[in-house]
């Protein structure tokens, strides 16, 4: 595995745009895309940021821009990590409790509880899940969001409750339509 310093030197060498750009927004996007493509986001750490700032003065970005780009990459990497963990837990929960009718047994399952403990960050993943594969995630959503979108919308059945939560997710910017 290449040391971080060499990776970033290579990054700058391979993308001449980084040296030339005066357009910060465009440059940010370019650099971000490049990082996503060439560097494993799960490897990103403060170490990269330090290397970037100390060894690549020819990159015409301010410290803030570099920090922002890396912070966005880190956020995206966290989102993907959480998505992966959520899907693993949700699949296991479904397999191990799908044959139960008792919501109590289903909600008290270790994976359902762990997902709830993730807090608001897990809401987009739950909403995308119920969009694709409706199931009783309402209990978790109600406790995490401290709000009941189904009741607030006047839903009267399961399908309407799913629709109400998805609409709420879009309105609150947790998911896109």
């Amino acid at each position, binding site marked *: 595995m290449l040391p971080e310093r060499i990776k970033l030197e290579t990054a700058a060498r391979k993308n001449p745009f980084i040296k030339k750009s005066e357009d910060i927004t465009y440059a940010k996007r370019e650099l971000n895309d490049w990082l996503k493509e060439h560097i494993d986001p799960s490897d990103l750490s403060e170490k990269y940021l330090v290397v970037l700032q100390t060894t690549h003065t020819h990159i015409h970005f301010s410290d803030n821009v570099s920090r922002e780009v890396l912070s966005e990459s880190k956020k995206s990497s966290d989102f993907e990590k959480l998505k992966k963990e959520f899907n693993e837990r949700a699949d296991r929960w479904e397999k191990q409790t*799908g*044959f139960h*009718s*008792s*919501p109590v*047994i*289903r909600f008290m399952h270790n994976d359902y509880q762990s997902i709830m403990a993730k807090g608001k960050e897990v809401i987009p993943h739950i909403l995308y899940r119920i969009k694709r594969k409706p*199931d009783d995630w309402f209990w978790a959503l109600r406790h995490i969001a401290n709000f009941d979108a189904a009741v607030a919308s006047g839903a009267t059945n399961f399908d*309407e409750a799913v629709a109400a939560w998805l609409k709420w997710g879009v309105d609150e910017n947790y998911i896109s339509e």
Partner: protein
Amino acid sequence: MRCPHIERYLENLGEHGYDHNDVSPANPKYNCIAWAAGEDHRHWWPADWDLITYYWPPHLQREPFGQQTLQNFIKAFQSLGYKKCWFSYRQKGIEKVAIYGTPKNVPTHAVRQLESGEWIWTSKCGMIDEDIKHRKLFNVGGNEYGKVIALLKRRRDGKPFLIDVIKNWLTKKFRS
């Protein structure tokens, strides 16, 4: 169709305990209690925390999380014309339902008796899985659903049992 995921968790079902040729597609729109009650469009559970997802006969009490009682389930089936009984064998013109539960009598599952054929009982396996036909009550009992904690019966033609007609008549006669 075999359901290895169900066989894995219902240890007494095994490969040969249910009818492979008559398994419904998995459907998250109803659960086992609804299926035993003869419905396939909503979930039945006396949940007081969610009146939208879970239906319960409106005249019956809904119970807090983790405090569901056998009595409430029996009342729900009584509202459909069922009464308690003690034997699970098939009787002409009679439909039976069995409720499964934990050693503390907390209901977990329900099955309905079929009128005829080789397979005696029908079970919707939980909230999202398939419904299956099985030969014995024992087939779906075990670590997950527990054992049968109540048996109920009603006449398939919807009429009351003769014994109940007589009881009602006597009650009315002696009250007056």
